[in-house]
C-alpha cells in the first residue's frame, strides 16, 4: 500500500463516491498543484464537502484499487477537466472551455499517469448516480472552468485594470445622426462675431474682439501686479493719510483765496455807502467770517508748514527760503495773514455786537477810524491769503515733509550728519 495516497483532511476534499468521481479527481488535482488558488480549492470544496459528507460516506482507497478504467459516462473527459495549474498551463486555461484535444495531449502524459493511479485508488464503484450528476458535473465543470479562467484576471492587477473599460459605452454614430435629424430642420447655426456670456438673468452678448482685448489687458495686468504688491508699513500708512490732507488743503487754499478776495470787494462796496450802512448790513457776517477765516488760515498754514517742513530746518533750506528760491515764504505769508486776522478779532466782535449794544458805536469819529483800520487790516489779510495761494499754485507739488519722512537713513538721531536734501521743484 505504498502507493496509497494519504487521505485528505475533512473539509478540504469531498468524501470519495462514484457520483463525484470527476470532482474528486479535480479536487485531488487541485490539492496537488500549489499554483491553484487556495481560495478556489476551499471555495469549491466546502460546499461540496458539506453536501457530500451528509449524503455519502467516505470510502477508503484500498477498496478501489481494483478499478483501473474509468467509466466514461460518469467521468468527464480529460480534455475538459481543469488541468493542474502550471506556468505553461495559464495560456491554455485562459483560452476557453473548448480546447481541442490535440493541444492538451502533450501535457497529459506528464500528469495523467500518476493521476490515473490515484484515480484508480480513489474512485468509488457506484456508477448508478453518475448519469444524474453528469449535467451537474458539467455545470460545475463549466463554473470551474469559468472561474479558473477568471483566475488570471483576478490575480493580476493589469488584468483587473484591463477590465475597467468594459463598462465604457461607445456611443453609436447613428445616435448623433439621429440628433442631427432633429435639429437640422428647426435650428441652424449661424456664427456671428458675438460671444454669449451666461449670467444669472440669462445670456448677455459681448463682442468677441472686445473680450479678446480685455483678456489681453488682464493677462498683462496679472503679470504686472505681482511686482507691484508691497506690504503696508506704518510709515506708508501715515504718509497716505498725509496725502489725503494735502489734497484737501490744496482745495482749501484756493477756496480761501477766492473767499478773501470777494470779501474785500464786498467790504469796500458796503463801506462806500457809509459807516452806518456798512454796520447795518455786515454785522451778521462779522463773527462767522472771523471764525471761518481762522479755520481756513489754520488749515492753510499747517499745509504750508508741511510743504516746506518747518520742523526740520537746515542751512540750505534757510538760504533758499530767504533768497526766495524755494517758495517757503508761503509759510510766512500765511502766518502774517493769521496774525492780522486775529488782530481784527475784537473789532469783528464789536461789529457783530452793533445791533445789541449801540454804546460801542456811539462816537462816529471813533467808529470811522475803527472801521478804516478794520478795512485796511481786512485788505491786508486778504492780500496775503491770495499771494500765498499764488505762490502755492506755481509750485503745487512740493512736499518736503513726505520726502523727509520717507528717507530711510540715520538722520533720526544725528541730523547734523544729514546729507543736503535736493529740492526738486517742478513748475506745473
Amino acid at each position, binding site marked *: 500500500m505504498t502507493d496509497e495516497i494519504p487521505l485528505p483532511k475533512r473539509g478540504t476534499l469531498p468524501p470519495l463516491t462514484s457520483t463525484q468521481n470527476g470532482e474528486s479527481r479535480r479536487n485531488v488535482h487541485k490539492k496537488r498543484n500549489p499554483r491553484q488558488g487556495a481560495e478556489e480549492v476551499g471555495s469549491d470544496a466546502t460546499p461540496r464537502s458539506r453536501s457530500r459528507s451528509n449524503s455519502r460516506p467516505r470510502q477508503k482507497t484500498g477498496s478501489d484499487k481494483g478499478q483501473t478504467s474509468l467509466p466514461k459516462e460518469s467521468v468527464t473527459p480529460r480534455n475538459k477537466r481543469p488541468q493542474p495549474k502550471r506556468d505553461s498551463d495559464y495560456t491554455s486555461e485562459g483560452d476557453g472551455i473548448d480546447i481541442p484535444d490535440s493541444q492538451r495531449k502533450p501535457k497529459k502524459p506528464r500528469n495523467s499517469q500518476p493521476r490515473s493511479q490515484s484515480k484508480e485508488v480513489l474512485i468509488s464503484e457506484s456508477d448508478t448516480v453518475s448519469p444524474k450528476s453528469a449535467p451537474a458535473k458539467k455545470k460545475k465543470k463549466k463554473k470551474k472552468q469559468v472561474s479558473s479562467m477568471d483566475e488570471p484576471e483576478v490575480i493580476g492587477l493589469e488584468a483587473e485594470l484591463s477590465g475597467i473599460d468594459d463598462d465604457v459605452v461607445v456611443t453609436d454614430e447613428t445616435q448623433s445622426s439621429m440628433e442631427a435629424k432633429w435639429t437640422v430642420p428647426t435650428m441652424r447655426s449661424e456664427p456671428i462675431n458675438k460671444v454669449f456670456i451666461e449670467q444669472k438673468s440669462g445670456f448677455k452678448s459681448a463682442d468677441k474682439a472686445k473680450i479678446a482685448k480685455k483678456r489681453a489687458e488682464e493677462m498683462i495686468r496679472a503679470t504686472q501686479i505681482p511686482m507691484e504688491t508691497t506690504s*503696508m*508699513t*506704518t*510709515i506708508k*500708512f*501715515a*504718509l497716505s*493719510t*498725509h496725502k489725503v*490732507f494735502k489734497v484737501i488743503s490744496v482745495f482749501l487754499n484756493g477756496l480761501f483765496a477766492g473767499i478773501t478776495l470777494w470779501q474785500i470787494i464786498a467790504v469796500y462796496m458796503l463801506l462806500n455807502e457809509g459807516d452806518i450802512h456798512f454796520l447795518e448790513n455786515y454785522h451778521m457776517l462779522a*463773527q*462767522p467770517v*472771523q*471764525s*471761518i477765516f*481762522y*479755520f481756513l*488760515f*489754520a*488749515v492753510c*498754514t*499747517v499745509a504750508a*508748514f*508741511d510743504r516746506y*517742513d*518747518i*520742523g526740520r530746518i537746515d542751512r540750505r533750506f534757510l538760504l533758499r527760503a530767504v533768497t526766495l528760491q524755494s517758495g517757503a515764504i508761503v509759510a510766512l505769508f500765511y*502766518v502774517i495773514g*493769521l*496774525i492780522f486776522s*486775529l*488782530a481784527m*478779532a*475784537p473789532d469783528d*466782535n*464789536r461789529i457783530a*455786537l452793533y445791533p*445789541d*449794544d449801540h454804546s*460801542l458805536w456811539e462816537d462816529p469819529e471813533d467808529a470811522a477810524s475803527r472801521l478804516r483800520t478794520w478795512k485796511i487790516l481786512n485788505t491786508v489779510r486778504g492780500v496775503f491769503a491770495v499771494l500765498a495761494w499764488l505762490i502755492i499754485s506755481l509750485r503745487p507739488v512740493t512736499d518736503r*515733509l513726505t520726502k523727509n*519722512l520717507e528717507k*530711510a537713513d*540715520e538722520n*533720526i*538721531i*544725528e541730523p547734523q550728519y544729514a546729507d543736503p536734501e535736493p529740492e526738486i521743484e517742478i513748475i506745473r
Partner: protein
Amino acid sequence: MLVSRYMPILYIQYLLLFIDLFLNAFSSLLNFQDVVLLVLFVIQDVCILFAVIIIFLLFFNTYIFQAGLVTILINKFKMPIFVVFVYFALSVALHVWGMTLLWGDPKAFIWNSGYHTLFVCQRVGAVFYYFFYKRTALRLGDPRFYQDSDWIRREFEKRR
C-alpha cells in the same frame, strides 16, 4: 508696530486735533450760555491732555525708550514736546481768563489788550501745535523707532 495698531492711534490723534481746531474757531459763535462755553472749554483742554498722553504713550512704545535712551528721544522730539506743553498752558490760561470775564453775560464785549495778546498767542500757538503734533504722529509711524539697529547700539555705547 503693526499697521492695525497704528491706524486707530493715528485716527484718534487726527480727531483730537480736529476737535481742538473746531472749538478754537467756532467757540465765539457758540456762546449761548455760560455753561455751554464752560463745557466747550473743558472739552478742549481735555482733548489737549489726551493728545499729550497719546504722544507720550507712543514714545514709551519705542525701542529707544525701552532700551533706556530716554534722553535721546527727548532731544529728538524736544520741539514738539515744548510746543505742546506751551500751547496747553496758553489754552488753559485763555479759557480761565475768558470764563472769568464772560461769566454772567456770554455776549459781553470783554476785549482788553492783555486778553487780546493772550488770545493772539494762543491762536497762533494752536497752529504750531497742530503742525508739530501732526508731524510727530507721522514720524512715530517710522518702524525704525521700534526696531533694534546699529545706531541705537552705538548710542547706548556712547552713553555708558
